[in-house]
């Protein structure tokens, strides 16, 4: 049985995946305009500097759910046993940085736009982990 696809690090993403493997979420910050960007690009999408020298800085991992979808069918290998699978679109507290990942803890979670989540990680293979999210219980 083929497993789930694994991320392949490249020159732009190596720092991100190295941190993820240690269960740390880091986001690229442009040295020139100081804005955060995800995913990192060859050019800073904010100031358009062609040598942004991104620093990968730790972020809180806290954010707000903007939307979600529940997959009942996957077009990729390795997910069938996890269906239905809940994916959340999260805006991090640090700014207009959006991440998409699984919401761990079941597809029937009581979600609403504005639900608070925090980052967690799925370990996919030795040395490979990817960001996911967990609901923060409402006070």
């Amino acid at each position, binding site marked *: 049985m083929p497993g789930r696809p694994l991320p392949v690090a490249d020159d732009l993403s190596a720092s991100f995946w190295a941190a993820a493997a240690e269960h740390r979420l880091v986001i690229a910050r442009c040295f020139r305009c100081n804005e955060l960007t*995800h995913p990192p690009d060859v050019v800073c999408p904010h100031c358009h500097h062609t040598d942004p020298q991104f620093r990968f800085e730790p972020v809180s991992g806290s954010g707000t759910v903007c939307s979600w*979808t529940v997959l*009942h069918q996957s077009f990729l290998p390795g997910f069938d046993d996890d269906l239905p*699978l809940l994916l959340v679109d999260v805006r991090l507290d640090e700014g207009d940085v*959006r991440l998409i990942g699984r919401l761990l803890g079941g597809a029937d979670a009581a979600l*609403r736009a504005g639900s608070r989540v925090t980052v967690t990680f799925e370990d996919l293979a030795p040395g490979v982990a990817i960001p996911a999210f967990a609901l923060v219980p409402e006070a």
Partner: protein
Amino acid sequence: MTFKRDAVAVAGYAQSPIVRHFDRTLGAVALDTAKQAITDAGLRVDQIDGFTSSALFPTAGAHAMQDGVSMVTSNWLAEHLGVNPTYVSGFQGVGQLPGSVMLAVNAIASGAATHVLVHRALHNPAGSYHGNPMQEASGSNQWTAPQGFFGPLAMIGMTYNEYLQRYGACRESMAAVLVEARKNGARIPWSYWHDRPLTADEYLAAPLVSEPICRYDADIPVDGVACFVLTSAERARDLPNKPVYVRGFGMGAPTRRRLPLHWPLDDLYEVGTETARRLWTTSGLGPGDLDVPQLYDGFSPFVYFWLEVLGLCPVGEAHRLVKDGGIDSDSRTGLPVLSGGGALGNGRMHGVPQMLECYLQLSGRAGERQREKATVGLACHSSPHFGGAIVYGADV
């Protein structure tokens, strides 16, 4: 910037049947369809000196991209028609059909070509359309595929749910869109869904794929080819068919960096609103002037998004409009936004049903489906923030 309205016209067309799988190769059907369109326009093959298109095969799967088999480029078509054209161009962006039409308009208006063939050839491969055996997610896929966010159904599920949550809408309202598209598609002889309307109950009973998207919210993959012949308005008036002019256009794309296939609702409205403004600026018209507004519906939520950015209803209100019968093309008060059946009522023809309905209605060639007043049309393609639309006009 002043757009030259009505300088270029559609002079003729042809379309193949829309079926699940051709019993011939896509290229062979494309060649026959191209010849039919050229004849329909009252021209000979040797008079066609321009070719524009998008050859995109819109699959997330690992299918081979083979020219003449799974997709057809303009270069392939010209070569196999035995033509050495003065101008050939392929459109790279999203909103492939309006983009290809604008390449033709520019070629004709500049004098780079005289008669231009615009085509679109869509292929439905054997096996799963979007299924992909990927084990290594590299490039842009590395950011989302390992999580399972992959392919256009997950993409639109996320955007559609953001709409439902923000505006308090429910899945049930969308049944009116599917019923309308399939009602009109059922009346069209070339449609995959000919004679097969859909009820609201059938729609709501369909399996969910990427909740809140169900199977019927996506157009069905098909084999099909459409060709249009464009020329100058002046020359078109001497050809057999009533000319349908390109009166205005709008295109747009977001500049904000996002994850692949991530279409936040705010991006969609922001860029889509600008696309609509460009339509009205170039055409000198407004939403109230459209007799045949054909909205793109490759995924059903696009109908809501286009209704709202075009100003055919207030933002956040499209779900109420459709539920209340507001897009019933048989009603005197309904907006006929899916009168041509759209993609949901024809099959995955990527903007062709919208353009074809504008052409047929405005040229007076819609037969039994001919609408009484049809002098201004709008053909949209893709999402309002990543696509384009063309305003068509006819002589009154």
